[in-house]
């Protein structure tokens, strides 16, 4: 009798489902009352990483890079950058890559399955796929894109996203661009009540930077809300062109 009970208990233990991963589904809006990031998440950052303070509504003016150490060519290019060059019909609506897009205050939606997580960003209507099926990144010379190629895994209660193949774009929206060789890793952790999502973004780009960079970003969940269409209007550039002509 005792053996039967023991066998039954063992069978139940084997059949019991594994602890479910956190559910990140929902609409997430920037937390304007951000809390201190968990120390254990920060401790996982690789050495020689600077946490740059330009998340949310904060923007760096020209010639400010938050502690990132630029290689000479990258610094020269950034210093030569003129903001008015972006006010062109062909450039004003160019979306930034996920490296910069993630820092801003625009919301996003998470749609989660065991095999795939989809992130739909309001900023420039961008959509990102995170493959959770164990696949590798494609070969280095595979096509790049602004969202890059992302693979994900669970590390305990944290979602870890590894992204490569990101097309060159801005890092800090003030002339500092990353190359197509940039590598980005993000860690996402859900609060115990499920209403806050904290991310630590880390990136390295040996072609551009001598150190690595990181950002800490926090969002709050807003049930019932959804991403609006951004649909950038390039006619905005004409506002600046008209103003420039009027000054001449």
């Amino acid at each position, binding site marked *: 009798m005792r053996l039967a009970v023991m066998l039954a208990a063992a069978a139940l233990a084997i059949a019991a489902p594994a602890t479910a991963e956190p559910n990140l589904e929902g609409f997430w809006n*920037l937390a*304007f009352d951000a809390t201190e990031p968990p120390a254990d998440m920060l401790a996982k950052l690789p050495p020689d990483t600077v946490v740059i303070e330009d998340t949310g*509504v904060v*923007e*760096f*003016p*020209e010639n400010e890079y938050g502690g990132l150490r630029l290689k000479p060519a990258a610094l020269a290019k950034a210093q030569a950058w003129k*903001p008015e060059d*972006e*006010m062109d019909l062909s450039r*004003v*609506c*160019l*979306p*930034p890559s996920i490296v910069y897009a993630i820092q*801003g*205050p*625009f919301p996003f939606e998470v749609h989660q399955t065991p095999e795939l997580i989809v992130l739909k960003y*309001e*900023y*420039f209507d961008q959509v990102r796929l995170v493959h959770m099926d164990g696949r590798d990144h494609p070969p280095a010379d595979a096509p790049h894109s602004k969202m890059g190629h992302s693979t994900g895994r669970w590390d305990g209660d944290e979602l870890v996203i590894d992204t490569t193949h990101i097309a060159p774009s*801005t890092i800090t*929206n*003030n002339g500092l661009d990353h190359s197509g060789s940039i590598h980005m890793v993000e860690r996402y952790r859900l609060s115990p009540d499920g209403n806050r999502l904290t991310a630590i973004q880390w990136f390295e780009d040996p072609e551009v930077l001598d150190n690595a960079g990181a950002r800490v970003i926090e969002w709050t969940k807003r049930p019932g809300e959804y991403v*609006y*269409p*951004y*649909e*950038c*209007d390039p*006619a*905005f550039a004409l*506002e600046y062109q008209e*103003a420039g002509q*009027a*000054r001449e």
Partner: protein
Amino acid sequence: MRASPLLFAFIAAGLSAGAAQAHHSFAVYFDPGKDVTITGKVTAFRFTNPHGTIVLDVVDDQGRTREWRAETNAPVVLQRRGWTRSSIKAGEVITIDGWASRDGKP
């Protein structure tokens, strides 16, 4: 001939805890340390991303009419606060608090 100097300002009313800035960086164009307040008659209002723009005629202390342009927060953000394309209409007289442009040109 009416002078048409242009000075970009930014609507501080849109820059609250819920502000959002698009790829077009405010920080490189506008100075958050230089507040500007203007009152004028609206001549145009464009409400599309990345930023809305308001064009208005402002009469200065010398009685001259000058055209000003102000940039708003991203319309996609303002929509969540109830803004629409009809929130501002040509002919209305409005007051704007904002940041002066960094180039300081009139």
